[in-house]
């Protein structure tokens, strides 16, 4: 965990990519209709900016999102690396089920729940 932290810092600082992140045009326009900007950073400031912490954005994206990541990982017995990468590479069928569930959850959130939730907050 410390290693990932230091690595992330190195990659964002001394090893940073000088070019801005280009988001796929289709995603950028879909996000724009939801009022979320794509301005070349890793994360949208209108959702993840520090000033958003104590707003309904913070409650949804930081608190609920984080909770689901932690709870789901334990309940499902692994996350992307454990199931999708390691499990699939060793041909374990429970990991295939888990990967399909991860993707299904993401699709449902992005396409069904997200447009609804973003109007709510």
């Amino acid at each position, binding site marked *: 965990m*410390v*290693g*990932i*932290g230091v*690595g*992330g810092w*190195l*990659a*964002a600082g001394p*090893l940073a990519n000088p070019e801005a992140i280009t*988001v*796929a*045009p289709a*995603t950028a326009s*879909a*996000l724009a209709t939801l009022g979320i900007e794509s301005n070349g950073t*890793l*994360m*949208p400031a209108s959702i993840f900016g*520090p000033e*958003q912490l104590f707003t309904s954005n913070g409650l949804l*994206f930081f608190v609920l*999102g*984080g*909770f*689901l*990541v*932690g*709870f*789901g*990982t*334990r*309940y*499902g*017995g*692994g*996350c*992307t*690396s*454990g199931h*999708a990468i*390691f*499990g699939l*590479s*060793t041909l*374990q069928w*429970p*990991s295939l*089920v888990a990967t399909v*569930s*991860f*993707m*299904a*959850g*993401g699709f449902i*959130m*992005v*396409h069904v*729940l*997200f447009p609804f939730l973003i109007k709510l907050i």
Partner: protein
Amino acid sequence: MIAPCMSTLNQNNNSEKFTGGDDLSNFQSSRESWLGSNIKYLLAGLLTGVVFVKAEISSWYRIQEMFRFDSFHMYGVIGSAVFTAVVSVWLIKKFGTKTIQGEAVVLSDKKFHMGVVWGGLLFGFGWALTGACPGPLFAQITSGYPQIAVTLLSALAGTWTYGLLKEKLPH
């Protein structure tokens, strides 16, 4: 802890001690120094963290693109990771590679229970919201977004709540 992700790589040469299960931490029979045991994880983590940010795996936008089928980026990243893992596991098995401590590498099987389905769905919801799975969460914090520490604390609360409700949940 938050990421039992890599726990399938159990290291052990004593079959009696081996308990299996998908939630087992790295098992090692012999003792080693605190520094010796942690420095290898530090180095592996360091490389992982650099990859998370440089490959933009820790970017919220890349996760959105993936779930909208608008970009090949994340599918390429995950696909190459699976390919590398297949080759690595094949090499470990072919050459009977031992751990640093000279112990055999034991790969435990993932066991199926309904939690894989329901937990997987909930994880997917969280992944789409935060743009991070447990590993990249740490990289988000140090790559310019210290406020993501709140997400991390909330994820820890999630793992803790799972422990609390474990007996009552369908498995």
